[in-house]
């Protein structure tokens, strides 16, 4: 009895609380609807303009290696952009994720606390650097220094074709990939670090008490526990890499060609292509760019969906075998 009265003291304030609830519910519903409407409007706008562009296109939108949007018979396609975006993002992931996992493990399980805090802070700070600054750093610092690396790679792995190098300035997809790796490193690191930190103390102590070394504790408890977190972190990073614009536009020397070698200058990505061409494009040209932007959007959506699927599957089996 007493407890009930205490929890709902008096009828008046209960009614006031109800009113508060109603206002909040209305507000939430209102903003939800506004959000949906905005998104629908954006989607309609993009789809209409993209359809207009596709109708004008004389070439095949998926396979054409060209981007001519003006003139009599415009011909443009996203083959080069799709390849460039996928290749550079993939390189970025391959480079960044292992390093990020390594840093996160070091910060959570190896570094003394005095060292871990400043390093973590530094990594977070890197995430706050504007992408144009990364772009300038890439163009002015990274590109000249990578030339030597690429010459070495050419000597060792040139026979594969993928890693041959003709010797022009290193404004290639590989350079973009490396730059993107540096750019997504902070976000992947900090998300992974948070996940690793949440590994239950009791589980880690269980491993320690069985006589596990530090690395065995990591392998038995931290990594399996954090696996879905690593996937989400990677996908966050991938999302950023796929859409990165200014840095890529600053570093890449664009061309509508797919080179056999990732080290040779040229290529393009969706976002970079839009940024480089948008200013000079006429209406038809802009529509074509919008169409390519829509593809990028779908790509990002696909990546996110895949990530969710992977995480959901893992969760189902989270309890079962390693």
């Amino acid at each position: 009895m007493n407890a009930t009265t205490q929890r709902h003291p008096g009828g008046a304030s209960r009614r006031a609380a109800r009113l508060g609830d109603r206002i909040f519910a209305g507000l939430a519903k209102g903003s939800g609807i506004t959000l949906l409407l905005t998104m629908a409007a954006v989607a309609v706008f993009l789809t209409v303009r993209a359809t207009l562009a596709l109708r004008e296109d004389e070439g095949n939108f998926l396979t054409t290696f060209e981007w001519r949007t003006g003139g009599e018979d415009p011909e443009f396609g996203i083959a080069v952009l799709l390849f460039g975006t996928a290749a550079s993002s993939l390189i970025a992931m391959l480079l960044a994720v292992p390093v990020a996992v390594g840093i996160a493990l070091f910060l959570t399980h190896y570094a003394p606390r005095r060292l871990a805090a400043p390093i973590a802070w530094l990594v977070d700070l890197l995430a706050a650097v504007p992408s144009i600054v990364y772009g300038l750093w890439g163009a002015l610092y990274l590109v000249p220094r990578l030339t030597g690396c690429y010459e070495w790679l050419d000597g060792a792995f040139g026979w594969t074709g993928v890693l041959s190098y003709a010797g022009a300035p290193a404004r290639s997809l590989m350079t973009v990939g490396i730059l993107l790796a540096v750019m997504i490193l902070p976000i992947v690191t900090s998300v992974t670090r948070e996940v690793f930190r949440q590994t239950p103390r009791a589980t880690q102590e269980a491993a320690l008490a069985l006589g596990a070394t530090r690395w065995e504790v990591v392998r038995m408890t931290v990594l399996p526990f954090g696996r879905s977190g690593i996937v989400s972190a990677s996908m966050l990073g991938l999302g950023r890499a796929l859409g990165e614009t200014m840095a890529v536009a600053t570093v890449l020397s664009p061309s509508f060609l797919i080179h056999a070698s990732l080290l040779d200058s040229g290529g393009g990505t969706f976002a970079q292509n839009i940024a480089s061409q948008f200013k000079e494009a006429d209406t038809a040209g802009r529509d074509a760019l919008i169409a390519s932007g829509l593809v990028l959007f779908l790509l990002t959506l696909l990546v996110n969906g895949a990530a969710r699927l992977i995480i959901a599957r893992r969760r189902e089996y989270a309890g079962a075998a390693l």
Partner: protein
Amino acid sequence: MAKRIDVHGLTAYYGAHKAIEDITMHVEPTSVTAFIGPSGCGKSTLLRTLNRMHEVTPGGRVEGKVLLDNEDLYGPEVDPVAVRRTVGMVFQRPNPFPTMSIYDNVAAGLRLNGIRYRKSELDDIVERNLRGANLWHEVKDRLNRPGSGLSGGQQQRLCIARAIAVEPEVLLMDEPCSALDPISTLAIEDLIDKLKTRYTIVIVTHNMQQAARVSDRTAFFNLPAVGRPGRLIEVDATEKIFSNPSVPDTEDYISGRFG
């Protein structure tokens, strides 16, 4: 082989906080020793110094000696990882590896030792230890299901199976039954009775009846005053402690007449 433990002038700290002070006692092999005492008197801390788990806590450090069959666990050349393989531990809250199956939980410690087992060998060891922990019949049809899907009592027995699978010399148990119902508690007490023929067992418990039922010797710890480190008050045969203790404080604590 079960081993004897000798604790000599042991003091343990958490950072600047001294949790237990100057503890000297011994633990007999192939017998059960119970640690009793009010909350915060340092039973868990002392237990964790016996397999060098104390130093895992940030700031945790130890002075004094712990001899395992005359070998100092805190000697300069001793590897804490090796100590923990010899001295197993069961925690208050059941903590099976949530990402592993029941089978893998039991096999986890064996896989750590770096010895490659054949599948059939491993199967045998897993079955033997699950039987040893009185759990085999309940889980034999679902060995590949997650260990976290078991009841609390079953999980605790799984943790015991995991701990004894590596054949330690000593088994430390920190309130292993505090999260369990009376039936699971009895199952674990039976198990302890069975295990003591092969292992040296130290158990922390708040349950006086349990201490009286399972242990051969009992150590009583107490805090001399609030904020002071915990101390050993007396250690003796369980019968003696429960019928005719030498220190009045012990009797007060056991009979429930306590501050």
